[in-house]
């Protein structure tokens, strides 16, 4: 394995097969091995919206530095399916190492780059013949892949032992046997790598965890005291519910699968009223259904965290594919004017940090707070630094205890205050009675249409956004602060742009990257970043340039904003994005 890059530092691998045939375990095994060697790991899955069949692909990146995208220079591919190769053909490095199961026929002419090193064998057939089950094709193929990476056979064997142990010795033995079949075959075919994967220091590794964005959000939420989650299954948000269902019992909390998204958001609201920190999570279609409820939380001043694990729309769209096309819905959905905040994490570390933040903000400012994720960020596994519980501070805002109340002459749940935030109580408090409503009301919560009151209440509610400004998550700035070209991207575009920035620099384009972590209310730093640049490429995963639209509406100069958009249902790839930017630069 040679390429222009040093393989010791950074390898991109793809495994593809048929959904449900177990082939993606090859990726998991390689991931384990490389993680044991101290690499940072990033993995992606691309599956069809069906239970069995369809092309399923897993991508794996092992790198010395932390990365959050699979690059479009793939050096190693293991495929059990010709369609899988076809799908990523353009992303294979010229000298890619390709392991192909030709049980169902050879790859067509020109299916891989001319100079690629293709090693084809009928793994499936061999597995059936020699081991009695197709499934063992996967373990056979692992042998080829580890040879390509020059990982010692023994290391693979011990990894197999660890991995399959809990399934019983028979399974261990059978897989080891399959592996040996693979090694023997590889020997026969003379397969070996040029450059081995390094053994990195184990130092960094211990402080790292491997986690998806959805899981990191769950951790942040519970660490911030979140104890009630209501949701409804939907790809790619379902893991929020599943994860919290498994955790909440031991934390004295509840995660509940409601009958639909309307029930989910309204159950969360009901629980929130009792003073519990609550969250709901969904994806596009479900988020559309929740709009009335979310606006109600804003109007009635009830804390609510909403996770939108975005997927490709519109409507049911491409349920398992990535996109960032609900930004407009989060920013402008719901009827009437009400305060809302939209935070946008870029990798699991952010997911944890911003989930904590969102949970605090929602309660402190008594309004809905969105966490805008996307399919890639939600579901892809990445190694990140272990989350630091010391960084978690719980801020319950203006909550009043019975002791506070007794020293007050009057308690008004919607009291007018300078910062727009009224002190609040929870039911069960002896002197804290309130009326909550989504109608316009006076300070006690009594419905009224008085126009003077109306204006005061509208102003009060919206004032929260200004009050919160200084504590909203600031963006991540990467690259040369004096560069005249800027890049902006959120969510999983962050990982892509980190890579793209390097590629641009390799091509001599000096640029700076901003990953804004608060989308709304807009932070001045975001607009300033654009003002201070000659041109800013806003890279986003939707058709209409929703993020660019937001930036312009909120103050960015139109003529400095250049949209780079993708909406083909596949992840944003750094090489592809960098190429478009370079092209646009050449024209500018």
């Amino acid at each position: 394995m040679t390429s222009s890059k040093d393989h010791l530092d950074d390898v991109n691998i793809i495994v593809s097969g048929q959904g449900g045939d177990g082939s993606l375990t090859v990726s998991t095994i390689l991931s384990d091995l490389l993680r044991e060697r101290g690499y940072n790991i990033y993995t992606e899955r691309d599956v069809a919206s069906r239970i069995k069949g369809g092309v399923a692909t897993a991508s794996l990146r092992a790198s010395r530095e932390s990365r959050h995208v699979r690059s479009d220079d793939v050096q190693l591919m293991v495929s059990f399916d010709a369609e899988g190769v076809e799908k990523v053909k353009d992303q294979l490095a010229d000298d890619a190492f390709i392991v192909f199961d030709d049980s169902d026929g050879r790859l067509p002419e020109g299916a891989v780059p001319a100079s690629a090193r293709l090693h084809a064998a009928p793994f499936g057939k061999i597995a059936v013949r020699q081991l009695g089950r197709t499934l063992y094709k996967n373990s056979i193929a692992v042998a080829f892949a580890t040879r390509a990476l020059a990982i010692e056979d023994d290391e693979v064997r011990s990894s197999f032992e660890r991995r399959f142990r809990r399934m019983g010795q028979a399974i261990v033995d059978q897989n080891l046997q399959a592996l040996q079949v693979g090694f023997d075959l590889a020997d026969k075919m003379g397969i070996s790598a040029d450059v081995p994967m390094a053994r990195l220091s184990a130092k960094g590794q211990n402080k790292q965890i491997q986690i998806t964005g959805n899981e990191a959000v769950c951790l942040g939420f519970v660490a911030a005291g979140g104890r009630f989650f209501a949701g409804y299954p939907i790809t790619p948000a379902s893991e929020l519910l599943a994860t919290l269902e498994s955790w909440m019992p031991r934390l004295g909390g509840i995660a509940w699968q409601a009958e639909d998204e309307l029930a989910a958001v309204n159950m969360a609201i009901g629980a929130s009223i009792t003073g519990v920190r609550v969250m709901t999570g969904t994806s596009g279609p479900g988020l559309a259904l929740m709009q009335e409820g979310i606006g109600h939380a804003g109007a009635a001043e009830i804390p609510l965290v909403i996770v939108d694990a975005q997927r490709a729309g519109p409507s049911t769209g491409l349920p398992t594919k990535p996109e960032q096309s609900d930004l407009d819905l989060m920013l402008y959905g719901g009827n009437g004017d009400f305060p809302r905040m939209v935070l946008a994490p870029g990798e699991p570390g952010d997911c944890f940090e911003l989930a904590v933040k969102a949970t605090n903000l929602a309660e402190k400012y008594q309004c809905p707070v969105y966490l805008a994720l996307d399919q890639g960020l939600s579901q892809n596994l990445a190694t990140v630094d272990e989350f630091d519980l010391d960084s978690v501070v719980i801020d319950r805002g203006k909550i009043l205890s019975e002791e506070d109340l007794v020293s007050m002459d009057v308690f008004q749940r919607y009291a007018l205050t300078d910062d727009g935030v009224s002190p609040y109580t929870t039911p069960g408090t002896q002197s804290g009675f309130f009326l909550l409503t989504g109608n316009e009301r006076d300070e006690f919560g009594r419905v009224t249409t008085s126009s003077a009151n109306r204006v005061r209440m509208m102003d009060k509610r919206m004032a929260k956004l200004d009050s919160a400004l200084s504590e909203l998550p600031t963006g991540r700035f990467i690259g040369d602060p004096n560069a005249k070209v800027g890049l902006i991207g959120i969510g999983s575009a962050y990982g892509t742009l980190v890579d793209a920035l390097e590629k641009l620099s390799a091509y001599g384009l000096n640029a700076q990257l901003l990953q804004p972590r608060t989308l709304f209310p807009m932070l001045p730093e975001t607009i300033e970043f654009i003002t201070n640049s000659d041109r800013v490429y806003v890279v986003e995963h939707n058709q209409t340039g929703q993020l660019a639209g937001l930036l312009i509406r909120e103050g960015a100069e139109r003529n400095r904003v250049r949209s780079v958009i993708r909406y083909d249902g596949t992840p944003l790839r750094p090489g592809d994005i960098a190429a478009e930017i370079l092209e646009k630069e050449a024209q500018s």
Partner: protein
Amino acid sequence: MTQTFPTTEPIWCAGCGHFGVLRALDSAFDRLSVSRHESMVFAGIGCSGTIQNHVKSYGYHALHGRVLPAAAGAKLANPSLTIVAAGGDGDGLAIGMGHLVHTFRMNPSFTYIMMNNGTYGLTKGNVSPSSPTGFKGMTAGRDADPIMLGLSLSGTTFLARGYSGQMEQLSELTDAAITHSREGRGFAFLEVISPCVAYNDRYQDWRSKLHDLGSEPAYDPTDRGAAFTHALELKENGQLPTGLIYKGKKDSLESTLGVSAANAPAHQDITSSVHRSEYQSLIDSFRR
């Protein structure tokens, strides 16, 4: 004493059935010695949806049709609260129908008083799922009967029907419903026939149509099948049963989730470090 919101006077039309519901509810809190600050009234949207403004209690005005999930969420989060949801037939039987069925199924311990006037009062007399045959061209067979519905669901534990023109029975049923849910036995459903004098004034009608099951000593409210067929017979004769219609036994939702007053979400100490080791072990589980 800290002054909190002053309860307001109802803005209902004189003669509106909802007055009776309010009286029964407010007095039930007294009769049952419900401590007011540990009670909360959840209301729907409609004329009925202002009832919480008139009761000394914590109060919440939900979205149209969403009073049940909101109340269920609150109950799960804090089972120490005595929760009464109340709303109209439009709220509960039209837009809220799905939640009603699911609440029967799940059996969370709160009371729901459906203030059924067979029309949408607040939006000026539209047809509702419980409008009588003939109302604005409603055809026979269209009327939804939430009690029959409740009988069809195996999770149901309490079904009663009262009439705001019969305060004595209504008070008893309100007490029974609130007691059922306060004791953690599950979802107590009380339908109240509560005429709308402005758009569907049927006080006359009801006088002859309502049949008090209390007058039948042999009636067994624990026999679901018998309750169903008896109600069916009555309905076929143009009558509607009132009183305690069914009482069953099923685990309450909060109990199946292991939530108790002592170990409920609302009672978790989240600001101290008591859960810290749990959090750390969750984080550790990702060192995979």
